[in-house]
């Protein structure tokens, strides 16, 4: 007997969590039950285990009662495992002699019968008491962090996050799918509730991105692959050919004048199709980078190879280069901020409003361009048929708060609809009706803005518009679009003829959000927006360490909230890379050499190629640095010669024994 077998002395702590747990679980009963289990030296209940005194209790007991195993029954390990590991370590024990039992999220919050909930808590505590016996002392592995950060998406969220990080001296790669950064915000005219000009506040930030020495801006590019783990991601970015060399183009636009297409005849994406552009174009005057781009679907030369290529001749810098091919760039970063934004709801999905049928039905984004001084009509509100509207109806909640389309409230539509009401009235003098279900103005100075609109004489009809059509039931409706709605304040149905209808479309995830999610190994909520790690305590983190969220890709939000969140994401990324290293969970797998038969069954199982077969030893071996700790090889090893720290066979079997002990 080389080493005396250590006596197991377990401390069990049952948390009340105020009434969160104690309200449904008889915590005293649980603590009493635990105290009778073999090996348990101390068993207590306490109001808030995660509080300082709660943690101090653990530390004290380790000293006084020579505890060598700790079990806390409280909330989810995803929330407080680290807290109690630290408390265990403070008491002088290895932090991995601790196990957390989830009796809140998995018990008190989801059950309604106190007796059942208490029995379940007892079973779970029993399992933990069984389990901790076989726990081992482990150390977390430290790996250095690459100090560069990748920001995906060049809207206001990505721009702000990139600038914050770059200003802190970090290398930033900003990748944007469109030819220019700026995102949706660049299209807006004024911003609510202050009515300051969107371009005036955004474009300086866009140009700082361009000129910042720490930022590498890749527009017209997409992340195609990401490997590695927190602190050490290896990213492949695919740069699409724009057929114009960024390093040579100065944005003089002479090539555009020279294009064989004399007239701009293709819908301009930036103006929501209300304006026109040529096959070679600069999306808008302040586009960043201000480099022309050639639309491969429109350019004669790209499509057919038969063109005079007058653009090439016109550029004395020789920037136009039809030989460009998609190009893959490899970069290494320590953290990633995902800021891929949103897509506006496609109004055609709500056919009752006649979008795409009646030309005078517009989406809110189109009207943003229409009232914008730099827009296709220079800010004049002119209908598609050339008329000036005398009455305008703005419909809220299009594609929001609906079972058939999107269930969520898009959060910004009430306010931007109010803003558009103000702008349209200001620009056209028209009579404006706003149709809303509930007026949601909960932000700073939002309610005041609503009040201002009321005073400006905008009509507010509480009721969701049932339909828009051009059927005339009364001479007053001739030549108009008729909005049919129940005015729920009056309690009657109304018909309101208007010249122009504006649809306050909601915000939804990009169509390819699922692919992006898989690419970054993060989750989506049921709505399809990226899921934060915790709605309150980790709102910009994801379940994948080192990947952070900013802006509307996480859920609809307005500009101030987006900027705040982008700042938070940047700060989280900074906190990660400034620490210089990350600690990895020690839940890696390892092969016991003398037990391995070298059957090679495990080798093809590892997606990270962490398992290799050593020819001279004729055994398999796991590279701990590559192992991510899933345990798939452990579950599959036919001779149980692979072990996983924290999830050893014996530990899982003892948990099973514990939960079923009362059967």
């Amino acid at each position, binding site marked *: 007997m080389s080493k005396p077998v250590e006596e197991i002395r377990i401390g069990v702590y049952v948390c009340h969590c105020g009434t969160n747990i104690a309200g449904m679980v008889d915590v005293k009963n649980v603590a009493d039950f635990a105290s009778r289990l073999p090996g348990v030296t101390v068993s207590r209940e306490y109001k808030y285990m995660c509080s300082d005194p709660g943690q101090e209790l653990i530390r004290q007991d380790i000293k006084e009662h020579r505890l060598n195993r700790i079990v806390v029954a409280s909330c989810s390990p995803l929330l407080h495992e680290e807290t109690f590991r630290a408390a265990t370590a403070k008491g002088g024990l290895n932090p991995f002699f601790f196990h957390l039992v989830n009796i809140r999220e998995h018990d008190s919050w989801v059950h309604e019968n106190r007796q059942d909930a208490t029995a379940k808590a007892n079973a779970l505590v029993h399992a933990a008491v069984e389990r901790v016996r076989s726990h081992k002392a482990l150390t977390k592995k430290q790996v250095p962090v690459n100090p560069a950060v990748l920001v995906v998406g060049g809207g206001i969220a990505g721009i702000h996050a990139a600038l914050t990080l770059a200003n802190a001296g970090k290398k930033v790669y900003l990748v944007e799918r469109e030819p220019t950064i700026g995102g949706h915000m660049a299209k807006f005219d004024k911003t609510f509730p202050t009515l300051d000009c969107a371009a005036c506040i955004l474009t300086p930030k866009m140009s700082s991105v361009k000129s910042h020495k720490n930022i590498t801006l890749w527009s017209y590019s997409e992340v195609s692959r990401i490997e590695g783990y927190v602190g050490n991601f290896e990213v492949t970015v695919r740069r699409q050919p724009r057929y114009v060399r960024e390093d040579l183009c100065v944005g003089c636009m002479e090539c555009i004048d020279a294009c064989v297409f004399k007239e701009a005849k293709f819908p301009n994406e930036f103006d929501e199709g209300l304006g026109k552009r040529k096959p070679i174009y600069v999306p808008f005057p302040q586009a960043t980078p201000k480099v022309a781009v050639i639309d491969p679907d429109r350019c004669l030369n790209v499509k057919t190879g038969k063109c005079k290529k007058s653009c090439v001749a016109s550029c004395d810098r020789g920037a136009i280069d039809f030989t460009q091919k998609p190009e893959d760039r490899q970069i290494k970063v320590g953290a990633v901020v995902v800021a891929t934004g949103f897509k506006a709801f496609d109004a055609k999905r709500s056919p*009752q409003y006649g979008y795409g049928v009646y030309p005078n039905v517009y989406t809110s984004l189109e009207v943003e361009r229409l009232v914008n001084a730099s827009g296709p009509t220079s800010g004049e509100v002119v209908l598609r048929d050339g008329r000036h509207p005398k009455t305008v109806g703005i419909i809220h*909640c299009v594609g929001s*708060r*609906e*079972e*058939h389309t999107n269930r969520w409230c898009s959060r910004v539509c009430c306010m931007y609809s109010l803003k558009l009401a103000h702008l349209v009235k200001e620009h056209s003098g028209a009579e404006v009706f706003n149709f809303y*279900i*509930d007026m949601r103005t909960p932000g700073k100075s939002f309610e005041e803005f609503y009040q201002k609109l009321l005073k400006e004489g905008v009509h507010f009809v*509480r*009721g*969701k*518009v*049932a*339909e828009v059509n051009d059927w005339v039931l009364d001479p007053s409706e001739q030549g108009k679009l008729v909005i*049919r*709605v*129940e*005015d*729920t304040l009056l*309690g*009657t*149905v109304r018909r309101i003829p208007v010249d122009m209808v504006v649809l306050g479309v909601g915000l939804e995830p990009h169509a390819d959000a699922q692919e992006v999610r898989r690419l970054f190994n993060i989750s989506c909520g049921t709505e399809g927006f990226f899921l934060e790690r915790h709605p309150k305590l980790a709102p910009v983190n994801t379940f994948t360490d080192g990947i952070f969220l900013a802006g509307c890709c996480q859920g609809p939000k307005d500009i101030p909230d987006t900027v705040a969140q982008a700042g938070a994401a940047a700060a989280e990324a900074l906190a990660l890379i400034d620490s210089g290293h990350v600690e990895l969970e020690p839940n890696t797998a390892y092969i016991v050499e003398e037990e391995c038969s070298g059957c090679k069954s495990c080798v093809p199982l590892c997606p990270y190629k962490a398992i290799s077969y050593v020819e001279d030893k004729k055994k398999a071996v796991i590279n701990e640095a590559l192992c991510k700790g899933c345990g798939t090889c452990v579950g599959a090893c036919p001779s149980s010669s692979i072990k996983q720290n924290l999830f050893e066979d014996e530990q899982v079997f003892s948990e099973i024994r514990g939960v079923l002990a009362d059967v």
Partner: protein
Amino acid sequence: MERQIRYQREARPAWGAEIAKLPGCERLYSCIQCGTCSGTCPMSLYMDYTPRRVIALIREGFYKDALSCRTIWLCASCYSCSSRCPQDIKVTDIMYALKREAIKRKVYPSRFPTPVLAREFYRLVKMFGRNSEFLLVFLLTLKTNPLGFLTMARTGIALLLTGRLSPKVEMIRDAARLRKALEPKEVA
């Protein structure tokens, strides 16, 4: 003058919950009172309460108003409201549920044709195994608007003469068995 204020003692909120348990009424409490149903409804033109208000009445338990209003009988079952409702509430089904409740409690507007039509139709089918348009029109007019015989006589005779309305009552074989089969359901 009728008082317009409603006292809470007149409401039975539990009744609303009862209605919500009936088939098709499950999503009653999801209503956000947006008025899409009313705006969509081709009959809301004539309704005393808009469908949205009927839903509000049910939820708050004002069963007398909800059961005696004209709205539920005016509903033409076009299902436009159900298809447009952003909360996927089956408004038409709720109207049916209220109609059944009203018939059960006999609290529908007197001489209102719809419930009479439904009842007489059922009686005829139960008796003969088939509907007889002739008898149905006769009974309906008799029980709702006897004066109608005078105003409708010309049309009726014209229909009879052109063979569009047959006074012959058709019967299925073994109608007695059908009657028997329908008996227990009446008990329930």
